[in-house]
């Protein structure tokens, strides 16, 4: 059993992949928190709590749920919008939920505009610029999500959540698997349920410092 835990960074100049440190992905019906396998229900509560504690809780929808490229993607996008609206309704003054897309994975030079998008090749720029201290990836291809999650863990103190449509992400601090419209709605319900029960943090994420 590994002692390694997937925690908010900044972790290292080049942090290891969590898989190489012995962290396993959850099986169906499970999730992981910090690399420890938990029942999915517990992960909804924890993810909602992290959102409600954050000064800038942010959703990063990726190409798999953008562009309405099929009916399922369009339904998921609607559910993500619902989750975002729920966050806005449930946070306290001073908290600023954001919805920033990862529209594609193209390398962009000289750099992306961090106010309007996040890019897997330098996701830390968007985290730093917007002082995002809790984020959730959804609809991002698994390889690109893992790249981003590891770079964020390496260089920022942002708490990362993955709502993955496949097997999950051990490089996130909390990961669901087999994402569906129902699971996104469950998370929104959990946020509603915990509204007013969680004290928000006073500081936000920044480069080189933990919260």
């Amino acid at each position, binding site marked *: 059993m590994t002692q390694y835990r997937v925690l908010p960074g900044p972790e290292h100049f080049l942090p290891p992949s969590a898989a190489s440190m012995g962290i396993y*992905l959850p099986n169906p019906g499970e999730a992981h928190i910090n690399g420890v396998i938990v029942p999915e229900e517990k992960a909804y509560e924890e993810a909602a709590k992290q959102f409600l504690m954050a000064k800038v809780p942010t959703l990063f929808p990726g*190409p798999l749920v953008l562009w309405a490229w099929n009916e399922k993607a369009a339904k998921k996008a609607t559910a993500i919008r619902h989750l975002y609206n729920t966050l806005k309704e449930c946070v306290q003054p001073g908290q600023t939920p954001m919805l920033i897309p990862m529209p594609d*994975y193209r*390398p962009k*030079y000289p750099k992306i505009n961090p106010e309007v998008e996040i890019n897997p090749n330098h996701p*830390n720029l968007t985290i730093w610029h917007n002082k995002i201290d809790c984020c959730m990836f959804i609809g991002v291809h698994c*390889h690109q999500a893992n790249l981003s999650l590891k*770079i964020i863990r390496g260089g920022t103190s942002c708490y990362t959540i993955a709502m993955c449509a496949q097997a999950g992400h051990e490089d996130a601090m909390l990961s669901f698997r087999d994402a569906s419209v129902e699971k996104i709605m469950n998370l929104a319900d959990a946020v509603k349920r915990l509204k007013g029960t969680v004290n928000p943090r006073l500081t936000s994420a920044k480069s080189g410092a933990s919260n």
Partner: protein
Amino acid sequence: MADTHSVIGTKNKKGQTFTDTWKLMNEAPRTPSFFTGSEVIKEALRRASCDVMIAYPITPQSEAAALIGELFAEGYIGDYFRGESEFAVMSQCAGAAFGGARVFTTTAGPGTMRAMENFPMWAGARLPIQMIVTCRGINSPLSIQPDTLEIAYLLNTGMLVWHAETAQDFFDWILKGYMVSEEPDVHLPLALCCDGFFVTHTKDVVNLTPADMCLPPYDPYRSPVPCMDMECPPVRMMRDPFVMKSNYISYATHASWQQEVWAAVERSRKHTIKWLNGLIETENTDAEVIIVTSGTAVSQGREAIRLLDDEGIRCGLVKIKALRPWPGEEIREATKNAKHIIVPEFNVTGWMAKEIKATIPNSERVHAGPRVCGGMTMPPEIIVSEIKTLLGMRTMSLAGRGS
């Protein structure tokens, strides 16, 4: 998005029924058949719902490549053609896999070496191509005979690497290999190796699944990278991608990319254990002497163990099935009681013994041999002789002038 479960129970154009792979491999009736290894490759491919096979002749895989051409003529393979060289074949395999096809190819020896640049590219691009490697000599002077040196070169490419002992392994692992390779959290190419000629050109009884049942098709929508997006890495490789920029974040992105490939190798562990019933097989691991090896050296080891048993010497066996992911924990556990660990190999450098030495505590227990190469056979008697010598027992001379 596509759902492969929806096709289970339906038929393909050849009348084969798409079957749940676990049921196909573990519950479907089996028919004993007397086939060469090359024929077994063909029979596995008949059931693999393969979209594209690309061939290039090089001994000892030429026969298998040609037999799969017959499958194409019969309508079991979506497309089949010959590349201009092994390098071209592996590049064409990449193109087909980028496009969302289930891809298969075969190679051997110098062909593996010639195509080598493609293998880390396949892994970095997360392409679940399956490549059969029928190992043979790679160095000058030319040898077409069995020799496993080329496996050592594959171990650090980021590919999954399995080493089959028998034609039965081959049949089962070709089909199971796609199931591991195509998992979205893995999605890596598989080099399925065997010892050329010993496996490919000898006949053996192999229990085949029904020919009218086949694997569910590959679902490219589960890929961890987009299919064939010319604007994004990994397809966008040479036109000002991040890999060509000189700044910290470009390097860090590439480093993370490499780590992600090896993370995927690690993730394959749980799926490989499920499908291969463990990364290793063991016998008598409480014995003081244990043979640890892979491929047909395992078969020779089994015979040596039988000969030793006749003399009252107890010897254990560890058959290593998967080389990547490497079964480090399993080998440590299986050899914890052993005083002597014997590693017979069909190559000159003893790469397997080096891997095992780097894995276990008290590595002086590892005896790196016996080794043969260049096509030599490995009589079980030389394994017996080495073990008896290690134990301080008298043993007959196996080579000399007969005096």
